[in-house]
């Protein structure tokens, strides 16, 4: 895995405002009559890895989707409260949604290759954002496929359909695809769920390297993973944030009874 910090291929969308922050304020999300996120308050610091943990169905994916406004396309959704990116509210602002998604990339829970070749999958976002130069695209694609540890496996079949990759490969491909548009924040929804322990470790290492340049918010069901790489931990339960704070504090000294139970594995 070669991720040289200084080397940024075709870096076109200059990442503005170092030290950017994503802040969630009094966020409530309803879908039809279900209250899914309940009064969520959260500060997500720049250039750190924040792990969101919590039992299935507690609203982790919904929270991520709200942050890049993918939730908008859900039928019957109502969002109250605010999400501030660099002190600008991104909820309810009409046309800025495209720019927003350039800054906040979401890697979905289920790997989802686009119906095109491996190469085109990774180049997709760059092309959308106006990079046409073939050589530049090749560089970007190779760089990010190397970064996620997929290059060696696919370099000889970049023009075959991405759907033919194994699920684990697809997951890394989707990660590479999101990285390639070079967002400020990466929302990774269980990005390693389909990976074997080794690939999974590799992606973890990648995230640790990436946090030099990106802020990473990842959902994980693997507590060990959170322990290994998280700077901050957020524990959610039934749509609420029960506890959030620096990783070592949460893991060594959880305040809330629910957090204690979850960390001790009593939920399973």
């Amino acid at each position, binding site marked *: 895995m070669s991720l040289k910090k200084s080397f940024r291929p075709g870096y076109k969308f200059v990442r503005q405002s170092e030290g950017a922050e994503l802040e969630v304020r009094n966020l409530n999300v309803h879908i039809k009559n279900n209250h899914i996120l309940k009064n969520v308050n959260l500060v997500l610091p720049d250039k750190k890895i924040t792990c969101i943990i919590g039992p299935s169905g507690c609203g982790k994916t919904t929270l991520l989707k709200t942050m*890049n406004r*993918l939730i908008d*396309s859900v039928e019957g959704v109502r969002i109250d409260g605010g999400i501030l990116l660099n002190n600008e509210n991104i909820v309810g602002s009409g046309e800025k949604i*495209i*720019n927003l*998604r*350039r800054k906040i*990339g*979401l*890697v*979905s829970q*289920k790997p*989802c290759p*686009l*119906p*095109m070749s491996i190469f085109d999958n990774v180049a*997709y*976002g760059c092309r*959308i*954002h106006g990079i046409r130069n073939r050589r530049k695209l090749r560089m970007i694609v190779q760089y990010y496929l190397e970064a996620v540890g997929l290059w060696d496996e696919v370099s000889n079949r970049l023009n075959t*359909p991405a*759907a*033919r990759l194994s699920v684990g490969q697809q997951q890394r491909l*989707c990660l590479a*695809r*999101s990285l390639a*548009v070079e967002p400020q924040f990466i929302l990774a929804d269980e990005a390693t769920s389909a990976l074997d322990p080794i690939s999974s470790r590799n992606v973890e290492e990648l995230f640790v390297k990436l946090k030099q340049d990106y802020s990473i918010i990842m959902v994980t069901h693997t507590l060990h993973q959170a322990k290994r790489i998280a700077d901050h931990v957020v524990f959610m339960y039934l749509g609420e944030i029960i506890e959030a704070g620096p990783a070592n504090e949460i893991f060594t000294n959880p305040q809330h009874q629910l957090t204690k139970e979850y960390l001790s594995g009593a939920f399973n």
Partner: protein
Amino acid sequence: MLSLTVLSLLILVFMAVGLYSKSADILKENSVWTLLTSSAWSPFNGQFGFWSFIVSSIYVTLLSLIIALPISLLTALFLTEKAKPWIKKAVFPVLDILAGIPSVVYGLWGILIIVPWIANSLGPHFVDYTSGYTLLAGGIVLSVMIIPLLVSLFVEIFSTVPSEIKDASASLGATPWQTSRKVVVRKALPGIIASTVLAVSKAFGETLAVLMVCGNMVEIPRSLFDSAYPLPALIANNYGEMLSLPKYESALMFAALVMFVIILIFNTVARIVLHKVEEKFTL
């Protein structure tokens, strides 16, 4: 199941054989090549050149497709991606009704609306004189006939594109329009091709409506404002009427055989394309 499949194959073979044996008369005296490529048409003198009919058929079908495809694609995209549910609910029954209207009604509509419009409003901008009974009129009427079919097929196909794919595209910063163009249409491409094949077959074989608006002059149409005489119109116009002429029945049977073969070739080519596309994008 198997016996049904075999049965439908047998019907196909019987039709081909039947048409072929019925056209034997004319094939005895003319080579297939002359029949197909000559445009000399003079049944009284025993001259049967089908070229202008074949060209007319192909032109009018192509034209209808050129008009219908973009409209149907955009309409279907709008209905699946953008339209409010109540619009969808309102449109589908209308599509079904449109698809069910007999073709003679479309033909009448063409004569009453399209033909005069071409003759009086559109035509004079481009040519000195046109009767309105033209290739263009045929293309327009045919396209209106296949649009409802195409739209409902496309909508069905587009709704099978998983929302996860659209979300993934959106997450990378694509606008809904970019997502539709680059992802939805691409994912649906095999289905789009298959539906188009269906529509082409329908348009190519459609008889009554084109017969009513195309003008039916035996000549190779040189522009959209010339009249055309597609194969099915030839058969329908003349079968039973001019059979006293020697060889005429046999000639019309040959025309049917030509249509049969064109559709067969077209379907085969389309299947090959479909296979290639599926291989390239999905599996």
